[in-house]
């Protein structure tokens, strides 16, 4: 016989049927079911195949620790493998599929592994497939992975959305069972900010399947009422369907809320999961306890279930495990189940108690067999009988379900995530978490306290202590009156069971059985951490929630020591698996990072710009015109137009920093390697910033707008870094200087107006005299535009080598001013140009960017040796610049390169070799840092860092592209391809 639904009882709504399917077979459950309870109600006891031996497996638990009932649910992008059927709420239309079987769950070829099992023990893979090594990757591993596995992830994109949120509270209570509810009510009534979290769909925990009466109500009604009271308190947040998975520094708890994992069609305005970071002043762990299985032959057969799980299915879901149930117990838990089963009209065939005497309080009809053990189960795909061993005699009893009760392990996972080690309590027969944790207390079954009244008492008392610490006035809470509660004594653990036959599983999910543990000890892997890795016990996705304590007990016995001496392995987050979606949150795809837009973005877009992502910025790369078929055509036209007429380029992305203060000049003098102290007001200067190790950090122009006011520009890429660096120098190094910094990058839109006709264009809108005499090269000042309608900053600086200006206007007016300039410049051939043309123009002029300033160069390498002040007492990088290696004669230094054959070309990154030299490391002369087709020169040109470069102008070399084995004969030349005497700058 199989499991079935009872006619009455439980919290499921028999008036609300839900259709679902398992392996394509239509089934029906009720509102309030989990997938597991619904499968049991439909008599589906076989739900999966085991990891290694492909043994038939059923449902072992009713909660988060489930090692067997892992199924794949959903379809397409919503496919979710390894879903624990025991926690998945049933919904209309749910599609579940079993895993790790082929061709079907009932007939699985992989089960042949079971026949090979004598050879498949712990360490088998390591020993057998050691040699020959190359076969591991090609043969063994793929084979093993196919045979031993979990569900398969989908390759389709997840259509759902996720998000993250922070929450803050005085007290976080983890778990809404008896202890947690009492704690939350105590703290809530005292006015504290409380967050109560529970992984279930409703508060109550074990109350939802307990038969005790509380304040005259059923336990589940009491839980419901307590939940309603908490919901009504504005200072309490009750979060159901939420699992706290980690405890982190600063008393922050990570939790994942399954917002829409219990519905078929998630609503688009809500995420499906939400990741919470909960900052708690104090926390109370009321996570309950896990009932341990017992380790005997065939303890994994479908139909075998922990006693408390069977009680949950019976009392909460109205599902009976079978027609004839046996109970194998080492403590009083089994008798609670026996009583409840009989009350529901389900026959209990036998209670097998490993203790010398059975529980005296039991008054039921079942046959009591004390001082006995179950040595094995019999059956094929579900239990048909058990073999009971007593006084050396064995007896077979026909049953169709078996409950096992091996004692309780407090759920202390969270408490052990910040370095604390659990300790073994002989009295409680359990590993307990230390009670002296900072910011975290433990109550209820998680502290090995038994009984509803005692758990509530402890939850409330611990909360009182917390409230006092937090400064709340606390009165002892009135606790509800609990009746009809069975008392239970601590279990004496039963580790190894004598006379067992067949495989006795310790770790169900990873198929680790008793003999594997023994083998580990015999082969010298008896240390708990080694045994874990040798046998893989506790290493599955359930992290050994059910198996670890049994494995430790068995190791202890095999080594002849106490579990205290064996200790536990290290606890790590997450308590239960967390989806990548939840960890990613809202920031995926296009929203992976924010977009930063220039104030001239829309102006560029309406002028036809093609954009390129530069860090977070979108920059205009080029502006194609009708008839242009390739980007090169557009870029060449833009370059030529700047050299012949005039161009307009958006350079708003440059970093801009306002620097004020009596010591601003002195500050800059220390920041830059060149002199700034005597820069006159109204002048701009090129500045070179070093790192403290002497290498160049960044460059830019800085203008003095007033005696105590400078305006610095940085490169786009290093804008944020330079600001941090300046703040470090101003605050941490030289706080005695009067210097104040403000980032003004977003305040100013900046446009380069470059070309021989630049002044003609600007003169049409700038009110001030900008003739070369009045406003010479490197002049910088505030000007007024369009008859005083607007004030702007004008700088006569040039990146292209042409007569050029940069005009900075308040960002909101940028588009308007750019439009005006385009109008004004039409008669002079003004065209927009993008970053590609900007790059070509600066390479032609031999100006460097971060392609050359690549962290390996000092000023002298780039021809800036003379710029470095010899007289300044100190500046960032000065001391280390004196190092011997930075003065070596064969350093790579900046030089120009062009191909001997003007139709030939080369690529950035190619290396420089002497003529006829083989491409070896020792022959390497340097490399191309930047290259472009130069319309001005008429061929590809490049900038390169070459050993002794400036001394080798005119030398014929070979440019070698190792990726394509291309050798291009070339000549080293001056890096300034355009106007080497700088006449154009000064016109």
């Amino acid at each position: 016989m199989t499991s079935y639904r009872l006619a009455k009882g439980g919290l499921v709504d028999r008036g609300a049927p839900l259709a679902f399917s398992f392996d394509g077979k239509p089934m029906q459950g009720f509102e309030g079911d989990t997938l597991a309870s619904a499968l049991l109600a439909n008599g589906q006891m076989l739900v999966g195949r085991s990891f290694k031996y492909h043994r038939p497996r059923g449902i072992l638990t009713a909660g988060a620790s489930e090692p067997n009932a892992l199924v794949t649910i959903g379809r397409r992008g919503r496919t979710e493998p390894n879903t624990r059927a025991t926690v998945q709420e049933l919904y209309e239309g749910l599609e579940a599929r079993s895993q790790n079987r082929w061709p079907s769950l009932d007939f699985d070829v992989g089960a042949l592994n079971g026949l090979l099992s004598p050879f498949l023990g712990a360490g088998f893979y390591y020993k057998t497939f050691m040699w020959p090594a190359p076969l591991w990757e090609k043969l063994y591993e793929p084979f093993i992975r196919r045979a031993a596995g979990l569900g398969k992830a989908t390759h389709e994109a997840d259509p759902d959305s996720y998000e993250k949120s922070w929450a803050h509270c005085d007290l976080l209570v983890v778990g809404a069972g008896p202890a947690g509810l009492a704690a939350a009510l105590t703290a809530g009534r005292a006015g504290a900010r409380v967050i109560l979290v529970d992984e279930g769909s409703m508060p109550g925990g074990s109350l939802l399947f307990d038969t005790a009466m509380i304040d005259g109500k059923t336990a589940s009604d009491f839980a419901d009422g307590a939940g309603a009271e908490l919901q009504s308190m504005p200072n309490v947040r009750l979060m159901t369907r939420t699992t706290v998975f980690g405890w982190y520094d600063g008393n922050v708890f990570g939790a994942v809320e399954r917002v829409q994992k219990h519905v078929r069609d998630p609503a688009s305005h809500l995420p499906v999961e939400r990741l919470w970071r909960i900052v708690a002043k104090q926390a109370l762990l009321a996570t309950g306890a896990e009932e341990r299985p017992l380790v005997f032959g065939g303890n994994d057969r479908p139909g075998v279930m922990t006693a408390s799980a069977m009680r949950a299915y019976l009392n909460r879901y109205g599902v009976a495990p079978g027609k004839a149930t046996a109970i194998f117990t080492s403590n009083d838990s089994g008798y609670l189940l026996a009583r409840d089963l009989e009350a529901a009209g389900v026959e209990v065939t036998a209670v097998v108690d490993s203790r010398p005497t059975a529980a005296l309080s039991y008054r039921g009809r079942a046959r009591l067999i004390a001082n006995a053990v179950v040595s094995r189960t019999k059956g094929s795909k579900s239990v048909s009988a058990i073999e009971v061993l007593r006084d050396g005699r064995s007896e077979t009893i026909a049953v169709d379900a078996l409950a096992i009760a091996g004692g309780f392990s407090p759920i202390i996972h969270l408490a052990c995530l910040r370095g604390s080690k659990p300790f073994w309590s002989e009295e409680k027969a359990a590993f307990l978490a230390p009670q002296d944790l900072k910011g975290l207390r433990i109550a209820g079954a998680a502290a090995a306290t038994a009984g509803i009244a005692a758990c509530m008492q402890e939850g409330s008392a611990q909360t009182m202590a917390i409230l006092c610490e937090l400064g709340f006035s606390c009165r002892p809470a009135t606790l509800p009156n609990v009746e009809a509660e069975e008392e239970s004594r601590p279990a004496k653990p039963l580790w190894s069971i004598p006379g067992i036959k067949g495989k006795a599983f310790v770790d169900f999910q990873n198929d680790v059985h008793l003999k594997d543990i023994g083998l580990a000890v015999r082969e010298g892997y008896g240390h708990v951490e080694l045994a874990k890795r040798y046998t893989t016990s506790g290493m599955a996705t359930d992290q050994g929630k059910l198996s670890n304590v049994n494995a430790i007990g068995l190791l202890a016995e095999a080594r002849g020591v106490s579990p205290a001496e064996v200790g536990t392995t290290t606890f790590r987050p997450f308590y239960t698996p967390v989806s990548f979606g939840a960890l990613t949150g809202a920031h995926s795809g296009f929203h992976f990072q924010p977009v930063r837009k220039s104030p001239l973005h829309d102006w560029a877009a309406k002028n036809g710009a093609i954009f390129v992502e530069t860090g977070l910025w979108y920059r205009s790369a080029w502006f194609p015109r009708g008839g242009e078929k390739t980007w090169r055509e557009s870029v060449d036209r833009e370059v030529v137009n700047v050299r012949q007429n005039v161009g307009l380029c958006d350079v708003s992305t440059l970093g801009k920093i306002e620097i004020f203060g009596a010591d601003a000049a002195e500050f800059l003098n220390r920041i830059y390697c060149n002199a700034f102290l005597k820069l006159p007001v109204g002048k701009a200067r090129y500045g070179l910033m070093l790192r403290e190790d002497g290498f160049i950090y960044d460059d830019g122009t800085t203008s003095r707008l007033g005696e105590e006011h400078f305006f610095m520009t940085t490169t786009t890429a290093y804008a944020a870094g330079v600001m941090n660096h300046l703040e470090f120098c101003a605050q941490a190094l030289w706080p005695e200087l009067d210097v104040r910094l403000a980032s003004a990058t977003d305040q100013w839109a900046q446009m380069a107006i470059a070309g021989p006709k630049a002044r003609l264009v600007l003169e049409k809108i700038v009110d001030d005299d900008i003739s070369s005499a009045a406003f010479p090269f490197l002049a910088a000042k505030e000007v007024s535009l369009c008859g005083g309608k607007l004030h702007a900053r004008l700088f006569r600086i040039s990146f292209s080598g042409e007569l050029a200006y940069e005009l900075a206007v308040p960002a909101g007016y940028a588009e308007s001013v750019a439009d005006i300039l385009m109008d004004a410049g039409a008669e002079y051939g003004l065209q927009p140009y993008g970053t590609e043309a900007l790059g070509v123009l600066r390479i032609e002029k031999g100006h460097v960017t971060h392609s050359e300033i690549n962290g390996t160069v000092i000023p002298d390498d780039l021809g800036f040796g003379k710029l470095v002040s010899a007289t300044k007492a100190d500046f960032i990088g000065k001391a280390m610049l004196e190092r011997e290696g930075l003065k070596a004669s064969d350093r790579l230094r900046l030089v120009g390169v062009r191909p001997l054959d003007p139709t030939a070309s080369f690529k950035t990154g190619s290396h420089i070799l002497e003529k006829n030299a083989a491409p070896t490391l020792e022959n390497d002369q340097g490399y191309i840092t930047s290259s472009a087709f130069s319309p001005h020169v008429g061929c590809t040109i490049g900038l390169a860092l070459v050993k002794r470069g400036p001394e080798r102008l005119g030398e014929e070399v070979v440019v070698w592209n190792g990726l394509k084995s291309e050798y291009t004969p070339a000549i080293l030349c001056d890096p300034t391809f355009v106007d080497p005497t700088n006449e154009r700058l000064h016109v």
Partner: protein
Amino acid sequence: MSDFRIALRPALGSATGPASRGVSLTAMPEGHVVQVLGRRPHAPDLSGVLEKAAGPAHRAVHAAGPGQWFIVGDAPLSRDEFAALSAALQPHATAVDQSHGRIRIRVEGTMVERMLAKGTAVDLDPGAFPVGTSAMTLLGHVSVHLTRIEIAVFEIMVLRGFAESLWEDLVRMSAEFA
């Protein structure tokens, strides 16, 4: 050439967002934002100076870290007004015009704290973050300056270049309350 017309283009000119009791988003007028840099970060109390400099109503002073403030208002500041404000702060502090560099967004509604908690780790409970409090913080991936204007009204100030991106984030964060 005084016949050219110079027009302001608001950073969030075309932005639309939720306007419900739960959460509503409004792009605030691009009036003025003046960053005030105290001469010393740990200067004596400048509140009197700031109040005087900020002048009449329609302007608010928001703290922005040690020795720094933002003076904000909905109306644009003329050149003369800025000069006057600047002079009033001397010699204690320097004024930097950031009217175009910072964009202000008003977020309000019954669920505004829950919405903002999706982005910032600052505890926005009125007990911890009363009306008038400002914080500079990370909202999602974007740095912002956050001020509680009223019990259920916050003003977010963000760099102009990030304004659109932040607006989109806020719209998504508000979806469940809209």
